[in-house]
């Protein structure tokens, strides 16, 4: 069974999904991530789905679960690189991904995490960056 690697870059964990995952692999990834976030004290998680051809309700629910999970460890989650066809399909499927943050690409995803992190720490001077990214 496929095991998705979790990379650490600074205080961000990066997961790049490159293969069509069976449900058990999705659940394993969820558990692995929870462990890694708590072990590393990471401040953010980026899930790169630019290679993912479909997002169904199962994998969509994983995004929501990881987002909630990471919050318990004081970390934020951003899903990046969603393909346009996937986005259109998700809307029609009815999956809203309500509390999951998304960004166009890895670069923007990391920027969003940085802003969120600084804001959590209550550092000054982040207001401008936040408004540039359209964050409230």
């Amino acid at each position: 069974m496929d095991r998705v690697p979790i990379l650490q870059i600074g205080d961000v964990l990066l997961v790049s999904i490159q293969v069509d995952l069976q449900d058990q692999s999705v659940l394993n990834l969820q558990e692995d991530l929870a462990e890694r976030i708590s072990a590393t004290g990471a401040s953010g998680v980026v899930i790169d789905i630019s290679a993912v051809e479909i997002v169904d309700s199962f994998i969509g629910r994983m995004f929501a679960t990881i987002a909630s999970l990471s919050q318990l460890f004081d970390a934020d989650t951003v899903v990046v690189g969603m393909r346009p066809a996937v986005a259109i399909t998700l809307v029609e499927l009815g999956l809203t991904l309500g509390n999951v943050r998304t960004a166009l690409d890895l670069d923007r995803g990391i920027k969003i995490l940085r802003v969120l992190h600084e804001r959590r720490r209550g550092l000054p001077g982040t207001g401008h960056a936040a408004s540039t990214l359209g964050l409230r």
Partner: protein
Amino acid sequence: MNHAVRETQQMDIRIDSDVVRVRQVVRECAQRVKLSLVDQTKLVTAASELARNTLLHGGGGHATIELVHDGRRSGVKATFRDEGPGIPDIALALVDGWTSGSGLGLGLSGSRRLVDEFDLASQPGKGTNVTVVKWAR
């Protein structure tokens, strides 16, 4: 849904990885009849939902993937059947967000929106049969 069938593939749905195989076969077929990328994605997503239902709710079953033609257009037809507990209230099962378990309740209602034709037949105690078709435009 009486469409001329040009090719048929049968597959078992017994374990997790069978759902992945269904997605792959459906995608191959969708590409062969030249569905647009968006329509391929919609059909594969619907097939994934229905195959998972066959596995989880139906206790396993079979999928039949066919290349079909109706005289004007080509399409892909996917049928999922099991001999599981069946669906007592079909109208209720098709309501967005209704689930008998811990799912999101979007599999059936959502996949119906993603395809061109959708047929659900089920008998309590006998099993369930869901057929979907997506046509190339």
